[in-house]
């Protein structure tokens, strides 16, 4: 059943993206092919979740973890591209769309997946996100945030979480965190927390998730469910948006009818954005997942052509979008990644 949905999704995505010509899509693929590596989690042919790396055009896919006895997911390259964090749990457990950041053990490896070691026990180091220099991680747990030195595993700072509860991302300059928060509006808001003052502000309120920073730190990209009239079984569709960290200047990045867009991740040079396209609202990690995608930021705001969507966004562009392998939580590095070709 899941395979059938995945196939339908692929066909739907191909049709939706058809507004761009094959030549435009090919040009985009050529443009990004040599720009580093993208890590993501996906099911292997054996059915277990593994961490993979691919070129940004979807080519040269390689399995970095190759561990059939575990489910490996949620990869994060350090900003210098040298190290990789991911989570790992015994084979057969289901990756949760709500809680993937605190399932299993946190693993630290070289960028090519070798020399992997567990940093703690099951459920420890939840929602770990890299510091800018790759020497610390910030974790999020019920009792609050904690910053941990990787070399010593010493907690060097703790502070209240103030309603933040999932998907934190540490800013490129190290001064702030964005995450999903209960502290603003009725539920599922994106908020920024300044680490010096612990002041928080809303970036986008209500029905938002999976925030991430642009490489320059001047924008936050996130998923946002468009207000709807009950379509798609009452779930509506989730779109990719961006805003300044203070919440100003919110604009659409990309929208489709037929897939929820999650896991937005801006390329290190700020010119492209990766995302996960899903048929189910929770990202469907229990099943096969659906193709990831890539597009140019200069082509946004953009929609996959659809009459109803065009009414909502009459000025949106229709550029090329790459269809990438099925996967979740893509993370891009331009830096030389040890063990991976330049």
């Amino acid at each position: 059943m899941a395979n059938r949905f995945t196939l339908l999704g692929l066909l739907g995505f191909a049709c939706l993206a058809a507004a761009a010509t094959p030549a435009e899509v090919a040009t985009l693929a050529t443009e990004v092919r040599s720009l580093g590596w993208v890590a993501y989690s996906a099911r292997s042919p054996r059915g277990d979740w593994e961490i993979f790396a691919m070129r940004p055009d979807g080519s040269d896919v390689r399995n970095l973890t190759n561990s059939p006895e575990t489910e490996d997911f949620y990869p994060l390259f350090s900003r210098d591209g040298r190290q990789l964090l991911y989570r790992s749990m015994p084979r057969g457990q289901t990756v949760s769309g709500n809680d993937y950041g605190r399932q299993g053990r946190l693993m630290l490896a070289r960028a090519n997946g070798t020399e992997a070691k567990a940093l703690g026990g099951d459920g420890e180091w939840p929602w770990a996100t890299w510091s800018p220099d790759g020497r610390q991680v910030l974790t999020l747990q019920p009792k609050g945030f904690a910053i941990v030195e990787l070399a010593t595993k010493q907690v060097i700072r703790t502070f209240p979480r103030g309603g933040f509860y999932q998907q934190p991302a540490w800013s490129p300059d190290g001064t702030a965190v964005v995450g999903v928060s209960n502290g603003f509006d009725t539920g599922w808001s994106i908020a920024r927390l300044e680490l010096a003052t612990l002041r928080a502000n809303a970036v986008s309120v209500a029905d938002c998730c999976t925030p991430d920073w642009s490489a320059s730190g001047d924008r936050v990209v996130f998923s946002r469910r468009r207000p709807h009239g009950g379509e798609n079984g009452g779930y509506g569709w989730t779109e990719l948006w961006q805003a300044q960290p203070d919440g100003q200047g919110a604009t659409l990045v990309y929208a489709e009818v037929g897939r929820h867009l999650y896991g937005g991740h801006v390329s290190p040079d700020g010119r492209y954005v990766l995302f996960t396209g899903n048929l189910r609202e929770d990202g469907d990690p229990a099943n096969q997942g659906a193709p990831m995608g890539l597009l140019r930021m200069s082509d946004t705001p953009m929609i996959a052509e659809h009459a109803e969507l065009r009414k909502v966004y009459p000025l949106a562009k229709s550029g090329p979008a790459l269809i990438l392998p099925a996967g979740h939580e893509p993370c891009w590095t331009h830096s030389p990644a040890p063990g991976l070709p330049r």
Partner: protein
Amino acid sequence: MKRWGLMVLAVVALGGLGWRWAPGPATPPFPADLGSVEVVAKLVEVPPGAVFQRELYHYATILRYEVVSCRRGGLMPGTLIHVAHYDPWKPRAEAGDARVGALGGTVRSFVAGDRHRLALVSPLDEHYMGGLVDKYFGQHAGVTYWALRTDAE
């Protein structure tokens, strides 16, 4: 023939009574020391959109109660309190899971005006880390309680 008919009717009737009188699953007694607050309170309302069935996501919703009586915790009758209920579309006895631990109670659904006996803890952040639907956002300050047990009163 009539006698047989009467006997069958009697057997059916007795069977029906037996079915009605059969004991249901025992409800665990309300623990005397669960949480830090125990109140009987009236559910003031169920705001539109506060309770919905969503298989894909777990969430908690905040509901407003008026305290009727307080057995532990020092709340005065008439006080309005805000209580977070996890996965509120489920019967309370089925709401707990590995994520939030044991929850319980005899309440099967939330109906405005009903009286509930509640065992509560606070602050919410220490007991629950997840999606929250708060239709009272900006309208209440101070403590939000986490419901551990919710019985119909």
